[in-house]
């Protein structure tokens, strides 16, 4: 880099790269902090908020990774609908104080975190170990940009993945019916209570 710092073409790409990395780190920080809050905080409302934070940061990642439509989907469905559902349920159940004071037993947290840690280590080793190989697909970013991300998504969805698409719709209907049924007042699902 020569002084007085006039970025030429490859300098610009390099700076952009740095910028990207910094943005990634910030978003990663937000995601991890959100996760931590969800896992550790006593009161479920704060957990829900932590989770929303995490979801938003992930949608940011999607944008960075050239999947703007997915970022939008993430924000709308996850942050929007699912988390509101959670908040509603938490409000609905207005947990009394002593419900929340029950700290998980010392022993199980130690064991759980140890196991979790071992799992993390293994995953990191796998990532680092170069185990992952995959054959390159045909959708280079340039091609995607030229056609437009959403159009590409639609094109793939309705040709290769038509069957799964139909099945998913069916699953959603089933979930819908299930949730409604479960929600009914006089619950007589055959249970005695």
């Amino acid at each position, binding site marked *: 880099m020569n002084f007085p710092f006039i970025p030429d073409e490859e300098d610009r790409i390099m700076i952009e790269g740095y910028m990207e990395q910094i943005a990634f780190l910030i978003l990663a920080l937000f995601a991890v902090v959100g996760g931590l809050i969800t896992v550790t905080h006593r009161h479920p409302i704060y957990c829900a908020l932590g989770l929303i934070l995490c979801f938003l940061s992930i949608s940011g990642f999607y944008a960075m990774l050239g999947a703007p439509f997915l970022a939008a989907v993430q924000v709308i469905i996850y942050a929007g609908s699912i988390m509101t559902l959670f908040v509603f349920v938490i409000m609905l159940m207005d947990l009394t104080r002593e419900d929340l004071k029950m700290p998980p037993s010392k022993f199980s947290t130690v064991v759980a975190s140890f196991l979790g840690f071992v799992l993390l280590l293994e995953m990191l080793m796998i990532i680092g170990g170069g185990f992952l190989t995959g054959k390159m697909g045909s959708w280079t970013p340039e091609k995607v940009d030229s056609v437009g991300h959403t159009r590409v998504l639609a094109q793939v*969805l309705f040709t290769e993945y038509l069957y799964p698409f139909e099945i998913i719709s069916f699953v959603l209907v089933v979930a819908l019916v299930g949730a409604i049924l479960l*929600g009914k007042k006089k619950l007589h699902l055959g249970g005695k209570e």
Partner: protein
Amino acid sequence: MVPLSWYLSLSAILFFLGVVGMMTRRNTIIMLMCIELMMNAANLTFVALSHYLHSMNGQMFVFFIVAIAAAEVSVGLAIIINLYRLKASVDPDDMNRLQG
């Protein structure tokens, strides 16, 4: 350019958080949230890989996972509400009727 391994390590951490949450927390709602967290970690990996491997399959999967997650949360929460009505508690340890 952010290298692929960063994304994967991040999702690993998120997954780790989800797993620990699932195992420790004594509140079913939080457990459900942790499941959501884990799913998102998986989504992140999918999108990252789909970006780096220039193939749309990853994003397709994410699309479906989101749908599944939505269905799952709705049904999960409905069950939790009923259990709450039943046992007046959200502690998973009280609900151990389904034992061998």
